[in-house]
């Protein structure tokens, strides 16, 4: 009832400005014609984008590491997470609540610890961390998001639809596959998108697990900040921001999913 209170509105505007400030600043700097980290006033330039796509380290980090890793991690997370969500909601298992808590663990265990733990294991076993280590780690981080989205959609489906299908002659499995799964499609796609973004944006796990041949875009950005690189960093960041923003819009507009945690 206080949703339109002027004090609340002022506060909301300030908090949203605070949330968006660092992102808008990065986007601004990426169009700066000079090599200073400034927001351009007047002339804008695309030179840092040209530099981004012309620099092999940046280009490879995006096209050969970040995108393929995120696609693979998201595909695996979607399959494993959707199955787990169906099992969690539909199977008759004891201690459902306990399973549920355990299933959400990757959200609560700090991802730097997962990264460090995976790094120690792979070096102990005698191989360097590689593409697969990164995919496995990112897959683990993405699964809880898939379970959340698919699980809550599954709970919301009217059981009478399935009853109707079965009374018309479907076997239970047919009823599930032909009635329930099509209704889950947009949720599964949203789960996949979430898992993709989680992998694509991750830095904490990659910090430990990414090797010289598997430098993801966030890692490349991080090391360039340390080497005090030029605004190509801002262009690379803006590319990241645009991809993430587009995917979230996609979930909202096409999949009609209420994005959230």
């Amino acid at each position, binding site marked *: *009832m*206080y*949703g339109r*209170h002027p004090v*609340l509105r002022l506060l*909301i505007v300030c*908090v*949203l400005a*605070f*949330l968006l*400030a*660092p*992102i808008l*600043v*990065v986007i601004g*700097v990426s169009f700066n014609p000079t090599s200073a*980290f400034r927001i351009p006033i007047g002339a804008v330039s695309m030179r840092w984008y040209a530099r981004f796509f012309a620099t092999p380290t940046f280009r490879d980090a995006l096209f050969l590491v970040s995108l393929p890793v995120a696609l693979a991690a998201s595909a695996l997370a979607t399959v494993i997470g959707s*199955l787990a969500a169906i*099992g*969690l*909601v*539909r199977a008759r298992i004891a201690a*459902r*609540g306990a399973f*549920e808590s355990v299933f*959400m*663990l*990757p959200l*609560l*265990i*700090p991802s*730097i*610890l*997962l990264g*460090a*733990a995976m790094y*120690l*294991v792979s070096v102990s076993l005698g191989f360097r961390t590689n593409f697969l280590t990164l995919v*496995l780690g990112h897959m683990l981080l993405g699964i809880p998001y898939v379970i959340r989205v698919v*699980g809550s959609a599954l*709970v*919301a489906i009217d059981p009478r639809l*399935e009853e109707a299908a079965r009374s018309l002659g479907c076997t*239970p*499995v047919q009823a599930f596959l032909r009635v329930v799964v099509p209704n889950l499609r947009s949720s599964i796609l949203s789960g996949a998108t979430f898992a993709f973004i*989680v992998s694509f*944006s991750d*830095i*904490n796990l990659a*910090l*430990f697990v990414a090797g010289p041949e598997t430098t993801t875009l966030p890692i490349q*950005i991080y090391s360039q*900040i340390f080497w005090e690189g030029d605004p190509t*960093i801002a262009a690379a960041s803006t590319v990241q*921001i645009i991809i*993430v923003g587009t995917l*979230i819009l996609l979930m909202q507009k096409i999949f009609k999913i209420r*994005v*959230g*945690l």
Partner: protein
Amino acid sequence: MPALSSSLPGEAIAAYPPWIPGWVWLIGPYLLVLIGVLVLPLANVAAISVFTHDPRAFWSARLTGANYARLLDPYYVQVLVRTLRIGLITTVACAALGFPVAYWLARCSRRVVTIGLFLIVMPMMVSTVIRSFGWMVLLGRTGVINVASEALGLGRWLTIMNTEAAVVIALVQICLPLLVLPTMAAIEKVPVSLEEAASNLGAGAITVFRRVLIPLAAPGLASGALLVFVVAISVVVTPALMGGRSNRMLGNEIYDQVITAMNWPFASAMAIVLIAVVLALLGLSLAAGRALARRSVRGA
């Protein structure tokens, strides 16, 4: 745990298709992943944390408490205290800023909520390194704010970089959505009529928030606060970029010991301490949730 539990309608649907004896095939793959990628590697860390550091082979299997004892060194005590302090300040700041936003999202129209959620979720999903970089560009000595201020003839007055405050500012921005989203879901379940009833009985806006909304949304607020704290005490990139040499957090020490110093046993001991803090808080929040549920049942 947050989220799903509240939305599961329990046994009515769960028991409905009696044809899934193969639940193993459904949750089995994920259980294998959890064991292989999460449990075993962490158990390995726990084991290494009580082994002896050996510069030639990372560690040798002689039991020792030295790695944990080294954490009592004043330097590491200071790092641990600083980490917990930054986590606490970040959590409180996120709760103070996030609760009004969550209320606004829970009570606004469907059209506005789509835009509002985009503005909250998009920053949440952008890599934390990019957001920290944005703060560096904004707050730096020759950053956007100082340059603008100089152009207005006010000079470069902002000298916040490489302080704990800079780390906290960046962390609040990183963590805020994690608090807003669960809190929003909790407030949505509170009927507006309760606010109206309290208001009709003479409560002002502050009283309605303090006596009605905050207690009823407490479970969501608590699970959001837990997420914020866990993320805030386990960052590496943000303190490295915003805090300089003198504001290092536990994550920075773990990173250096694993990657640079290669003292795995000591790094493992620090990792175990971090996990212990997280699990203790998780247990505490579960117990608090159960106590709260019992009290509300008795009250009803």
